[in-house]
């Protein structure tokens, strides 16, 4: 390896793989000194010493005490909050000096310094994958959630849903207190009353059940313990998770290996990934973990690049990233997988033990006639599979099948077939970890079915944070069944459809207000701690149950859930082998957020699953419907979060709505026009939904995503956004896992005369042959030019260079890594107080996102290639916007940044016109909750990041490269008498990017990552021509550069159209 390569490796190398199969996983707890919180500001400021138990102090000692503090009295947290919000302006419209107040602490908590952020480690509860998070709080208020750098699941990143957690916390439509049903109404009541009445009722009920979502960590055991204390069987606990991928994968592995778990997919070590209708990047089982792994294993580095082959019928975000994408019929996934298995069997060198191969050969033999015809049916030649099989055996690779977008009654069968394929390429133990560090399945397959059949006998049901009434197809009649249960208690973080059938509707704490834990990977435990006291009069679900038990006089020996966890964690303490005391251990874990040692085991080789392949599905040839989970709104549980609604679907860029995605050719053949409302009918239901052409979708497919379509007034945000496609699905289930089927439903489409405008963020998706916006290099070109460096900052110029300061901030965005997930947009909105404007304003074109995620399609309409490009302010050094501002509201600072001074801006909007990148955003309104239309939800004033100015109407704004974070880092560096180091400052988008596509830093520091990326051969700046040919385009000299996408094949001769003046 040349020195240069070593250097580059050193700069580009990511953090060491925590889950690298070769290395052992060390429990980190010994490294943590007791007595330090996970708070970077404090680590850098040794002057601030923490005090033990400051978090404990929040939770009262006895239930009576706890009740007392729920009343209105000022205590420390309130004071903190008041302090944080001390800048309370006096009456509006008055030009007199506003009188502001400072509220003093009564007794200052020693981990709090006014104006300095305190960081707490916790665990995200956005989905079942349990990413580690660090919550930044200021004055006692959480102001930002970020991925935990050291946490092996999130690895510093976080998806959009995780970023949006704050909006869920501060959502103004959360229930303000417990409610009790009085006829049709839900009346407010007190917790005392609630506990008393529930306890009384439950005491008289014979059979009580608990229905939960996908409970994490010890919660499942806790609920079982609660049930058994109530004198109920443990089988009275039901779980429901609408993402069927967990159940199908776990069920298949149970069939094959006897363990109901999921393998951990180490995409970082897979150079060739084959996805068969897999959506591991959009929803999957652990999108952040997979995103991190995928970008490491797949994206270009050091002259090498992985390969990703996708077979799918829907056009998913995952498929958009594929190097080769094959469009297959809906329902053909099993056949495709088996054809691949067949080619693998024929390929010399394929792996698998004799017994395994024997079984696979038997199955192939059994279905020989079907498989022989299958090539024609799925429309892919045998050579494709043969080539793929050959390549799969050449390098570390993995085959991933199934996803939320395809969940038919063969889902488990598909997973079994994928297990065969993975056995044959030897993935298990290399890229699929099932024997060490597997992922425990958070749900029990078939529970919903079990609940529905057992419901007759149930006298009471306690529902915790799950909503099958909305998220299971109505043909399953969940509502009807639950209505028949005499007593239902619904404990929900946000009011939802479950409340309709409930006697008691109790607000659950948000996860940032709760204790909890999670076991994302076997043997690996992640802690969840409250970072703020309940912002409304809500209680943690587990605590509610404990209280109910206490009132039933069947108390468990825990004063609260935290005490329960304390007991349970004893086992983990014992396993960790640490020498510190248990208290210190718990403190350290709470501070660090996680602890663990990979668990290992040995599983059966391969059980006999021949019976599961008696019949194979036929690919569908008629028009059929699939309803994938939305990557932002999931099953609809996040439909009330405007920041997620507004981020839009990455492929269609449609916001705030549901659409029916058609292949453009299908639309043409059926006379459907863009934006025309179509009636989609099945034998059980019909919906009206707007047609939208999505290139790359199979011709026989209609895609209507789930997530929207809430038809009640519980949230003005989600009310009447789009439609729910689930009423179209017949009551059908996966043959083996019992999960409801949400795809491949035969439907009819009737065109109506109605029109409806879908609020898409992007209106034009085609850039033809232009190379001034997106550049692509083939791998061969990069190898040829491996040693060639670029110098983006030096072009012929009449003017002298800007005065040299110590820093010049730059950003680099790797288009080869960017998967288009849009987490950056959401993180940016949360960090920078970017308002959400609602559908009507987006229709007008008034989106406020500081990062625009441009998505371009290239090539064939039936199977286009997509490129995603996040575009934020390019911080041009020759900025066209700066010179035109008459009042110096936008200027250049000495560190190469384009500074926008909101309070100087008068709103001529000339800068935005002059900007060739069109990244400036104008505040057309003052965005406030409840003003100018219901949908413009924005800030609960407490949800505002106090480090960034809130803009009013009439002011221009744009990406500031998170200058507030730069200032913070500088203040710290200055206090320590040093310079800002690389990675001291990470912008919100960079920090959260699951693909590590964004790098930010000081270009003048030759050792920084950014300066090596900026000189990379792939580096280019948008609209700045082709410097190779002394052609500099607009010559705006942006500080933001892009790294060209890499293609595996040599690109055909490109025409240069980028030109300038």
């Amino acid at each position, binding site marked *: 390896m040349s020195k240069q390569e070593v250097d580059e490796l050193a700069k580009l190398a990511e953090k060491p793989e925590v889950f690298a199969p070769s290395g052992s996983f060390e429990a980190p707890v010994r490294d943590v000194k007791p007595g330090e919180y996970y708070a970077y500001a404090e680590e850098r*400021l040794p*002057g*601030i010493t923490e005090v033990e138990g400051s978090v404990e102090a929040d939770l009262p000692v006895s239930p009576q005490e706890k009740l007392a503090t729920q009343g209105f*009295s*000022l*205590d420390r947290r309130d*004071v903190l909050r*008041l302090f944080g919000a*001390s*800048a309370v*302006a*006096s009456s509006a*419209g*008055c*030009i007199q*000096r*506003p*009188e*502001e*107040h*400072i*509220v*003093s*602490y*009564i*007794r*200052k908590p020693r981990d709090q*310094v*006014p*104006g*300095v952020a305190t960081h707490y480690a916790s665990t995200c509860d956005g989905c079942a994958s349990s990413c580690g998070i660090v919550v930044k709080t200021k004055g006692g208020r959480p102001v930002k959630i970020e991925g935990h750098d050291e946490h092996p699941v999130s690895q510093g990143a976080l998806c959009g849903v995780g970023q949006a957690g704050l909006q869920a916390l501060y959502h103004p439509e959360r229930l303000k207190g417990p409610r009790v049903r009085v006829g049709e109404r839900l009346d407010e009541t007190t917790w005392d009353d609630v506990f008393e009445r529930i306890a009384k009722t439950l005491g008289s009920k014979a059979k009580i059940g608990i229905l939960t979502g996908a409970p994490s960590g010890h919660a499942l055991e806790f609920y079982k313990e609660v049930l058994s204390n109530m004198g109920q069987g443990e089988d009275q606990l039901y779980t429901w998770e609408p993402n069927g991928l967990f159940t199908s994968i776990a069920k298949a592995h149970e069939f094959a290996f006897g363990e109901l778990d999921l393998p951990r997919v180490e995409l970082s070590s897979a150079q060739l990934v084959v996805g068969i209708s897999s959506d591991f990047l959009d929803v999957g089982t652990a999108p952040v973990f997979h995103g991190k792994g995928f970008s490491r294993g797949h994206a270009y580095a050091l002259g090498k690049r992985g390969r990703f082959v996708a077979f799918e019928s829907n056009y998913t975000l995952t498929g958009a990233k594929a190097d080769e994408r094959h469009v297959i019929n809906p329902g053909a996934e099993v056949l495709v997988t088996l054809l691949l298995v067949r080619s693998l069997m024929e390929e010399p060198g394929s792996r698998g033990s004799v017994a395994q191969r024997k079984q696979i050969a038997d199955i192939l033999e059994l279905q020989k006639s079907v498989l022989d015809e299958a090539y024609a049916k799925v429309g892919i030649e045998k050579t494709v599979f043969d080539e793929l099989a050959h390549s799969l055996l050449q390098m570390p690779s993995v085959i991933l099948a199934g996803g939320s977008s395809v969940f038919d009654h063969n889902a488990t069968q598909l997973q079994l077939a994928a297990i065969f394929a993975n056995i044959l390429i030897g993935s298990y133990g290399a890229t699929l970890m099932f024997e060490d560090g597997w992922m425990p399945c958070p749900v029990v397959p078939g529970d919903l079915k079990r609940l529905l059949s057992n419901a007759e006998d149930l006298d009471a049901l306690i529902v915790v944070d799950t909503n099958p009434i909305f998220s299971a197809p109505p043909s399953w009649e969940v509502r009807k069944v639950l209505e028949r249960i005499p007593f239902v208690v619904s404990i929900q973080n946000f009011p939802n459809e479950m409340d309709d059938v409930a006697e008691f509707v109790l607000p659950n704490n948000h996860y940032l207000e709760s204790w909890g834990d999670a076991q994302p990977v076997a043997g690996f435990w992640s802690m969840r701690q409250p970072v703020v006291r309940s912002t409304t009069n809500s209680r943690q679900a587990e605590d509610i149950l404990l209280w109910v038990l206490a009132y039933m006089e069947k108390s468990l020996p825990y004063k609260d859930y935290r005490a329960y966890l304390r007991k349970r964690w004893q086992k983990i303490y014992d396993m960790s082998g640490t020498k510190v005391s248990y208290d210190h251990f718990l403190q350290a874990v709470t501070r660090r957020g996680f602890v663990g040692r990979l668990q290992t085991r040995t599983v059966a080789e391969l059980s006999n699953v021949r019976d599961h392949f008696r019949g194979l599905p036929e690919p569908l040839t008629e028009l059929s419907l699939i309803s994938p989970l939305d990557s932002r709104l999931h099953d609809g549980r996040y439909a009330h979060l405007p920041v997620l609604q507004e981020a839009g679907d990455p492929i269609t860029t449609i916001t705030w709505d549901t659409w029916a995605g058609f292949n453009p050719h299908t639309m043409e053949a059926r006379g459907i026009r863009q934006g025309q409302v179509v009636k989609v009918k099945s034998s059980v239901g019909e919906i009206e939904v707007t047609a939208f052409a999505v290139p790359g979708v199979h011709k026989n497919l209609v895609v209507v995503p789930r997530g929207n379509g809430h038809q009640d007034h519980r949230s003005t945000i989600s009310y009447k956004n789009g439609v729910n496609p689930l009423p179209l699905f017949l009551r059908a289930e996966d043959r083996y896992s019992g999960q409801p089927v949400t795809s491949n439903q035969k439907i009819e489409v009737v065109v109506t005369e109605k029109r409806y405008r879908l609020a898409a963020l992007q209106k034009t998706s085609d850039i033809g042959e232009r190379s001034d916006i997106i550049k692509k290099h083939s791998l061969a070109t990069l190898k040829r030019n491996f040693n060639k460096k670029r110098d983006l900052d030096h072009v012929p110029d009449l003017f002298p260079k800007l005065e040299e300061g110590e820093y010049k901030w730059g950003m680099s965005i790797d288009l080869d890594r960017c998967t288009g997930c849009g987490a950056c947009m959401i993180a940016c909105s949360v960090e920078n107080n970017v308002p959400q404007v609602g559908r009507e304003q987006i229709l007008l074109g008034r989106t406020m996102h500081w990062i625009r995620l441009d998505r371009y399609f290239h090539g064939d309409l039936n199977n286009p290639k997509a490129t995603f490009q996040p575009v934020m302010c390019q911080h041009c050094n020759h900025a066209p916007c700066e010179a035109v501002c008459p009042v*110096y509201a936008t*200027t*250049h*600072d*000495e*560190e190469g*940044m384009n*500074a*926008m*001074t*909101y*309070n*100087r801006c008068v709103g001529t909007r000339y800068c935005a016109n002059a900007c060739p990148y069109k990244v400036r955003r104008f505040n057309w309104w003052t965005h406030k909750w409840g003003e100018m239309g219901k949908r413009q939800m924005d800030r609960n004033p407490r949800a505002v990041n106090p480090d*960034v*100015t*809130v*803009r*009013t109407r009439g002011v221009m704004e744009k990406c*500031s490269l998170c*200058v*507030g974070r730069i*200032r913070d880092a*500088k*203040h710290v560096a*200055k*206090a*320590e*008498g040093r*310079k800002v180091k690389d990675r001291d400052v990470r912008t919100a988008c960079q920090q959260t990017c699951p693909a590590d596509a964004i790098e930010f830093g000081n270009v003048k520091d030759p050792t920084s990552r950014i300066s090596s990326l900026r000189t990379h051969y792939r580096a280019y700046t948008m609209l700045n021509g082709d410097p190779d040919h002394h052609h500099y385009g607009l010559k705006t000299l942006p500080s933001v550069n892009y790294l060209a996408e890499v293609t595996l094949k040599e690109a055909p001769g490109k025409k240069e159209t980028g030109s300038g003046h």
Partner: protein
Amino acid sequence: MVLRFCWIALTATCLLMSGSSYAWWMWTPGDHVDDSTQNMFDYGYHPKQPIDFSHELHAGKREIPCQYCHSAARRSISAGIPSMHTCMGCHQYVRTDKEPIQFLTQKYQEQDPIRWTKVNDLPDYVRFSHQAHLGAKDHEGKLLLGEDEDQVCIACHGPVKEMTTYAQWTPLQMGWCISCHNQKREPESPGAEPKNFAAVSCNTCHY
């Protein structure tokens, strides 16, 4: 007669216009984010506080260092005000016969925090860091604004040690900030371009 009347009217109009435009520039309209404005003469602000706390007594006569109470100043953007617990540290024993101290003690016992009125108040669109001004060190680790911390406070907050209840001492307007920021430093080497004392780009304070 007619023309004379007109002549007076003309003069009066001119005077009125020039007077109003003078008044207009004296009052620079601020951002309406928080309805705050800046007025050239609006210092000397001296609101009534819940307790007539005497800086003269504490900082002056008793020589308590500024940062004993305003301890966040060197660590944070905000200087902070002491918690009631800090006050009670002494006043459990000291001067418990005085009325304000009894008021304080009562509040402390009721766990009812004191709402002080903010005197040195910047608009919400300005970021001012006490830490950066007070604790700023150069690359050799030397405090940029000198070692005598109390002197540094006085630079902006005025002779606090001589004031009983505090009144705003400096205008705290941008022009006033800038008058320091763009002073030229001693050039590092003879002949070199003298540099600004501190950054004057807009996003130093506004973001």
